[in-house]
């Protein structure tokens, strides 16, 4: 699947701050309702480029915050690696999807990024929140709104029994 449009880049510390802000009853620094979150911490843009390498980071670290963000209306998440049962349940509850981008292909993916700017927490450097415009950004539906999970059924068809 090729994705085009706006996604918001946010990773560990940004998620923590989102959760803390919500806990204090302050609301999020930007409206994420109906939006897509991409777990990414890009490298700095070299002169003349929109961004540096910008591939997905391991999603599992964001698991503890994800049900909360889905309850705020986030519709899709982009990252790499499997999610916790709680996230799968929340995806089903809120009708959202988890998309996987090819892990470790940061240079390749940077070509699909047309705009990138920091929109919150600039002091976090690579962990700030970015507004990113993507064009034909390749993703795979990893977990759908029914809970079908490619990270489970994909490997199972290639799994062979070991002696140990």
């Amino acid at each position, binding site marked *: 699947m090729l994705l085009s449009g706006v996604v918001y880049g946010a990773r560990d*510390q940004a998620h923590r701050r989102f959760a803390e802000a919500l806990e204090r009853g302050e609301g999020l620094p930007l409206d994420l309702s109906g939006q897509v979150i991409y777990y*990414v*911490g*890009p*490298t*700095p*843009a*070299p002169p003349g*480029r929109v961004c*540096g*390498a*910008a*591939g997905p*980071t*391991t999603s*599992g670290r964001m698991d503890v915050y994800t049900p909360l963000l889905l309850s705020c209306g986030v519709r899709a998440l982009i990252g*790499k*690696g*499997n999610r916790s049962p709680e996230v799968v349940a929340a995806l089903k509850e809120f009708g959202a999807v988890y998309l*996987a981008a*090819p*892990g*470790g*292909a*940061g*240079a*390749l993916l*940077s*070509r699909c990024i047309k705009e990138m700017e920091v929109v919150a927490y600039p002091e*976090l*450097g*690579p*962990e700030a929140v970015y507004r990113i415009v993507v064009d034909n950004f*390749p993703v*795979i539906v990893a977990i759908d709104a029914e809970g079908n999970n*490619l*990270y489970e*059924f*994909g*490997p*199972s*068809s*290639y*799994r*062979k*029994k*070991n*002696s*140990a």
Partner: protein
Amino acid sequence: MGKIPVSLIEKKVAELCVEANFDLPPDVEEALKRALQEEESPLGREILKDLWENLRIAREERIPICQDTGMVVVFVELGQEVEISGGSLTEAINRGVARGYQEGYLRKSVVSDPLRRVNTGDNTPAVIHYEVVPGNVFRITVMPKGFGSENCTALGMLKPADGVEGVKRFVIGAVDKAAANPCPPVTVGVGIGGTAEKALLLAKRALLRPIGSLHSDPFLAQLEKDLKEEINNLGYGPGGFGGRFTALAVHIETYPTHIAGLPVAVNINCHASRHKTWVWDGESDE
């Protein structure tokens, strides 16, 4: 007795940091190519093609292979007969890292304190391992280590009675738990023996061996082959979406250990197995 100015070391470390992040060693690339030819899963082949294309773009356009340009692990072999002149070697290495990460537009991924988490802004400090060796030699290897794979590290203090089977179960279990997180296909470094920290260091060093090189001890070489086969039977494949190539290689390093122990450590590297080495040529230039 040779003399190496710290300014030269700083410059070389900066260059190694940049080159390591733009350009994978040829053995890694070769291993990925072989995997692409042999992978059974169509989606797995697509991922391998993407990774292959990614390496080409990184090299040609001077963009980092991966956005996680890592925390820098440095291995130094310092000859007993060599004099380092002009200042602190450790500081020179860290200045080199800061310079390389600045000049190469690499990501600064280090926080000054693990709990309070404020970014140091220049990717320092590095984690430096020194080894003093005989002779008039100086060799330095820079290994930017991403944490998608580093977080999958495992240490097991097994019992001697657990034996080879116990070691295999532990290693396969660690890779099974890592699943898609370390961006397979991975290289698996296994350290067996010594003490806890020795086993971990052996596992990390094992990642520096050329991919696919077998251990010189036939018994351990066989264990490497068996482990690779059994790890690939887990079925994760490229990207963890299913396939034959979860591991490109398994490298084992061992050390004598205590009569009561069998330490085993697993350190995983993603396909972006980045490392570059500079060997001093014996001339005190610059």
